[in-house]
């Protein structure tokens, strides 16, 4: 199995083309095995009663953050479909859809970075040395704040990979014609090969992480996180079962309000 695709040009020089798409099947297989093993372990493990969703509702995700999440998810899956389906043999005019979705993703990422830097509590998602205690497991481990170590790790990995994919994607976008510019040809063939390699590698890694993200979202004991990403709230019981109220003290959602709105235009920090 190759990791990188090369092609010998007419002068006998090796030209780097990008990642080998054989790795796609490896990533899919590895993700599948990992998910199956985890599911089997969780099945064997006795699960306790699940906390009730009833009672007081606490704000976990502001409306703006939820919109960001779902726009990012939609553009991500459009990018994935338009990027990967032609590789596996499904032929359609994919390129325009791909770069338009890429621009949507880039805009969403820029919005999220600006909002996170100036209006949100960036530290809540940053991995601290104290979080590493979660690695040991067991009942003595303190409950996490707003995000667990696994969630922070997933966010960090996805952030790095998406930034690589977006950065290389922008460079590649400059190489094609769009309504706003003609292709620039500013990258050498070797540099283009590196761009395609990094774009492909980050995409493959994102496929793996997205599979894990979807799996954990669908797990019964984690579904309240999915609900909170739709409606914005978690219950007091869910907070107590999964988080340390001393490390994360969310605001209560107003009675009768089924969704959490941003308190002010960009000031929706849910702490």
């Amino acid at each position: 199995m190759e990791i990188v695709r090369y092609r010998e040009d007419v002068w006998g020089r090796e030209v780097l083309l990008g990642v080998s798409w054989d790795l796609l099947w490896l990533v899919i297989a590895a993700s599948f095995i990992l998910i199956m093993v985890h599911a089997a372990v969780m099945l064997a493990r006795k699960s306790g009663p699940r906390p009730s969703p009833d009672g007081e509702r606490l704000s976990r995700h502001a409306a703006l953050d939820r919109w960001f999440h779902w726009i990012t998810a939609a553009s991500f899956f459009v990018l994935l479909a338009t990027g990967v389906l032609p590789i596996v043999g499904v032929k359609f005019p994919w390129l325009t859809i791909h770069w338009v979705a890429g621009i949507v993703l880039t805009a969403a990422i820029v919005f999220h970075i600006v909002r996170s830097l100036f209006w949100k509590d960036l530290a809540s998602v940053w991995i601290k040395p104290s979080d590493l205690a979660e690695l040991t497991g067991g009942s003595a481990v303190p409950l996490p704040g707003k995000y667990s170590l696994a969630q922070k790790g997933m966010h960090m990995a996805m952030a790095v990979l998406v930034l690589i994919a977006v950065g290389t994607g922008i460079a590649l976008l400059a190489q094609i014609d769009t309504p706003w510019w003609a292709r620039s040809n500013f990258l050498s063939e070797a540099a283009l090969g590196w761009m395609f390699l990094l774009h492909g590698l980050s995409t493959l890694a994102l496929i793996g992480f997205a599979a894990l993200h979807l799996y954990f979202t669908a797990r019964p004991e984690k579904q309240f996180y999915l609900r909170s990403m739709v409606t914005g709230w978690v219950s007091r019981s869910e907070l107590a079962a999964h988080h340390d109220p001393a490390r994360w003290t969310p605001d209560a959602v107003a009675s009768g309000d089924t969704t959490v709105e941003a308190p002010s235009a960009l000031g929706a920090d849910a702490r």
Partner: protein
Amino acid sequence: MSAYDVMPDIELYQPATVEDATELAARLKGKAWLLAGGQDTYGWLKDRAKTTEAMIDLKGIDALKGIREIPGGVEIGALTTLTEITRHPLIGERYSLLREAAAVVASPQIRNMGTLGGNLCQDTRCWYYRRGLSCYRAGGNICYADSPAGMNREHALFGASRCVAVSPSDTATALSALEATMIVTSRRGSREVPVDDFFVGPDVDIVNMTALADDEVLASVRLPDHWANADFHFEKVADRNVWDFALVSIAAALRMRDGRIESARFVCGGVACVPYRLPAVEQAVVGKPRSESTGEQAARLASRGAEPLNHNQFKAPLMENLVRRALRGKA
């Protein structure tokens, strides 16, 4: 790049039936080269710009040869030579557009050997690609023709998605105007592919020019009665009168009623990766007489949407003039 006098070592298969050919194509999927008349094939292989492990020589399959009348039209076997097409009375009487297109392909010697299927499935003539550079069409990441220093006089005005190569086939242009149907066969069975779907642009598939899968064989082409004995016009503009590819060509089929155009199909070759339909021209001429003034009005629409490269701007007025001449009618 060196050119070689001898062929590289290739495993040669010579099936005698379509079933054997499709079985081989399925077994050697992606590793075999389908050989018809060989007029495009041998250059690639001798130049070592493309290689193949195996070759399936289709020329021994009689079922893929010949021209026959079928209910609803005429069927031409994919291995029918271009010379046979130019001389066959059915084609001459009913579909003279195809006869005229086949008659201007390359040279008499090439037409004697070259087949309809080969002419339709031949690869583009972009010299960067044919020289073996790792361009988009060769699976690479760059288009040398559409670069600041790229020589792109022969390249596309329309539908270029990264790759700007054009279809070199003269018969494809005529068959598009005639609304032909391609019969594609494989071990999985046969399927009918409308001509407009048979040729694919780089936006859909940047490394292939047709919708043929690795295990499929173009078996025949069917011409519908719909356009039989219509008024036709075919014209090819090239740097040389023989043995050259079209800079721009036009194939027009016009159905007349009471001196006016009832329906029409206009297709240009040499301006896109696929035979390029001119729907705006087709709509504009319906209900009008075939005349100089209709030609003047419709010609303006021909090159609408063209995106010329550095060296092929001349193709836009050339297209317009060819539409003008197609509508001028018989002298």
